[in-house]
């Protein structure tokens, strides 16, 4: 039973990871790519770790997998935020098709205080 659940989760996880990787290649600029990378790869990796838990059960390996889910959920959005902020501050423009950029508008006058 738990092995079947493990297979289901590993297939869902790999599918989402694959979609995230396709997004990383197809989307136009760094911010859009980060969107695909954080959302899909976070859930995909969590699903694969969850399937590890279902395969091995509640022992030292399974508990480590559950703890890793927690770490990934906390660190993945934080690092995406850090990369996006660093990219914007080092002057990487948004994709030409972008509608607006309030961040750049606001930053023009307050370069030194930000």
């Amino acid at each position: 039973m738990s092995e079947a659940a493990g297979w289901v989760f590993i297939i869902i996880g790999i599918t989402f990871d694959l979609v995230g990787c396709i997004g990383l290649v197809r989307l136009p600029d760094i911010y859009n790519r980060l969107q695909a990378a954080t959302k899909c790869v976070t859930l995909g990796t969590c699903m694969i770790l969850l399937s590890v838990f279902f395969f091995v059960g509640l022992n030292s390996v399974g508990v480590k997998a559950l703890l890793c889910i927690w770490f990934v959920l906390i660190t993945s959005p934080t690092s995406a935020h850090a990369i996006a902020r660093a990219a914007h501050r080092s002057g990487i423009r948004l994709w030409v098709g972008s509608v607006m950029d309030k961040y750049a508008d606001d930053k023009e006058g307050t370069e030194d205080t930000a």
Partner: protein
Amino acid sequence: MKRFLYFLILLVIWLLLTWSLHWQDLVVGVVIALIAQLLLGDIFPVGVVRVFNPVRFFWLFTYTWVFFFYVIKANFDVAYRVLNLYMPIKPGIVKVRTKLQTDMARTFLANSITLTPGTLSVDMVGDHLYIHWINIVSEDPEKETEIIVRRFEKLLERIFE
């Protein structure tokens, strides 16, 4: 008190990671938790103590399910945009306002926004969050705030504020 709580949390994480109650593992865990607590105890968020309260736990539990629902929705959203031949995206950075005051609540809000459909938090200046949105549906700041922030803000207010 605060440092002792931090020490206990670290020790529990250590025990879960080693998954053994042998006395040697216990001694190493206590020593490492003590060192980490002495070095990094200052950055431990004070507000977290308030979460140990049944009502707040109930809202944390509700928040967890709402959060997972949005994470799964976000994944299908990305899959739809990426696998579509014409890539229906209309990206941009918008500015929204948050009412939350504590650091912990703001951290949770920013991380939740990153993992929910189409949004990625870029920076936080004062009360304002800059959000990269993959598909802007309105140019009105009030409506943007309504769509992006409100769905988590109410729950997080009950948990951390």
